[in-house]
């Protein structure tokens, strides 16, 4: 068992996550004092129940399931944006999440400045960003617009820039949420190729997507989440077929 531990990139161990749903939220002291009765009207919704998952280094895993099955929550937990109520999640290596592309883009700054700012959120140093700058601009195909303020970009250009930054961070683990629909056909193709390349380089990737074609195309393992538990885990084709049979 011990020698296997080194090969694991993400270890999800007995993870529970629930959210409190308030009907009438008291945010201030006055409200809390006056309406303390009302505060009890909250509901606990268990989103994930006892999830156990070991993702090996270099594995490409798809999380599939219907809306509300907990896929995105699990991905957010892996990113450490939110934390489990019970259980632990350990990740090994530098991690990048492509959950919300372009988070932290500043509309008034130019594309170039935003590359710097966005990359620094991912934890790159100035030098590392300098080294990647050309690659990022080239990948985004925004050479002519890179010094214009980002607010002048179309939504497609915006996403292209954001994706190019995130994909060039050189992380060991990539968490990707439903973004395989970036840009036009040509750019999508390019993204796919880039992901295949990264896969070959031995990066660990976790996808959340509803596009079963891309799952079959890219992933060697699929995990089917249903109502917050792992329903099925294994070879992509088998899991996807079973999933489609159930939901169609």
């Amino acid at each position, binding site marked *: 068992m011990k020698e296997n531990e080194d090969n694991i990139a993400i270890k999800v161990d007995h993870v529970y996550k629930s959210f409190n749903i308030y009907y009438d939220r008291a*945010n*201030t*002291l006055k409200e809390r004092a006056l309406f303390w009765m009302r505060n009890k009207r909250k509901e606990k919704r268990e989103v994930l129940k006892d999830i156990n998952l070991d993702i090996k280094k270099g594995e490409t895993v798809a999380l599939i399931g219907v809306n509300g099955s907990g896929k995105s929550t699990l991905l957010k937990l892996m990113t450490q*944006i*939110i934390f489990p109520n019970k259980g632990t999640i350990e990740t090994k290596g530098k991690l990048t999440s492509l959950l919300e592309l372009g988070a932290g883009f500043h509309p008034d700054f130019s594309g170039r400045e935003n590359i710097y700012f966005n990359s*620094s*959120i991912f*934890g790159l140093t*100035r030098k590392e960003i300098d080294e990647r700058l050309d690659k990022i601009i080239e990948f985004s195909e925004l050479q002519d617009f890179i010094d214009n303020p980002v607010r002048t970009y179309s939504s497609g250009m915006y996403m292209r820039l954001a994706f190019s930054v995130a994909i060039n961070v050189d992380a060991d683990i990539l968490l990707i949420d439903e973004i395989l629909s970036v840009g036009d056909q040509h750019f999508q193709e390019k993204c796919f190729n880039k992901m295949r390349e990264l896969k070959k380089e031995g990066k660990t990737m976790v996808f959340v997507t509803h596009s079963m074609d891309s799952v079959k195309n890219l992933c060697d393992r699929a995990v089917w989440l249903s109502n917050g538990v792992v329903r099925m885990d294994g070879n992509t084709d088998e899991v996807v077929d079973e999933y489609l049979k159930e939901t169609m």
Partner: protein
Amino acid sequence: MNIFKKIYNYRELLKTNVKKEIRGRYKNSFLGILWSFLNPLLQLLVYSVIFGALLAGGDETYPIYICVALIPWTYFTTAISQAAFTVIGNSDIIKKVYFPREILPISVVTSGAVNFVISTIIILAFVIFSGVGLSWYIVLYPFILLIQYILLLGIGFIVSSVTVYFRDLEHIIGVVLMAAFYATPIVYNIQQLPHALQVLVNLNPMTHLINGYRDIFYYHQMPNMKMLLILLGISIVLTIVGYFIFKKLQKGFAEEL
């Protein structure tokens, strides 16, 4: 400690954040960065006229007396009120990307320090051109600033994380800072107060920092080092406690915001 390594790894983010805060503060305003000089100067003018008439009794150097205290005080209040808002104000990226959340209060306190150092030019100009002059005690300026920085870091960690769960704090801080202005010997001399009030004012940590700045810039005498070292100790403890509070509370940020 892990925290130092984390901050070091994300030093570029800290740098960009500090820059953005300094540059962004006066963005789109006609006079731009000039406001960081004009603001304290105009404030100084108002206080010198009002309190000068009330309290100074014809002392010509009274504006300098206030100036050396008012500028560090401005750093103190802006850092705290900005820290209280920084996590809420950055809720967009907190909900979407992982990065060490500690960066947020740290960059507020740091950008305030940079601004304060720039504003110190006003103090220097005042003491030089008014004839008060300079003294060697000025070399202690970085030391006093360091204590203030650590103190603000501790307060910043606490207010930035607690406000997320308890939004009233933002308003409470405004009132407390207003009261603290009068509980710090900025416009008056502590000797002018009755004894009972002196005790109270001496419990205020800012009193001793202001005294320190005033000693080196205005009175040209050795500050009360014993007091400052005690304050340094308290500030370090506060920062450690504040950091643990922050660390505990930050796990819920994305859900609370």
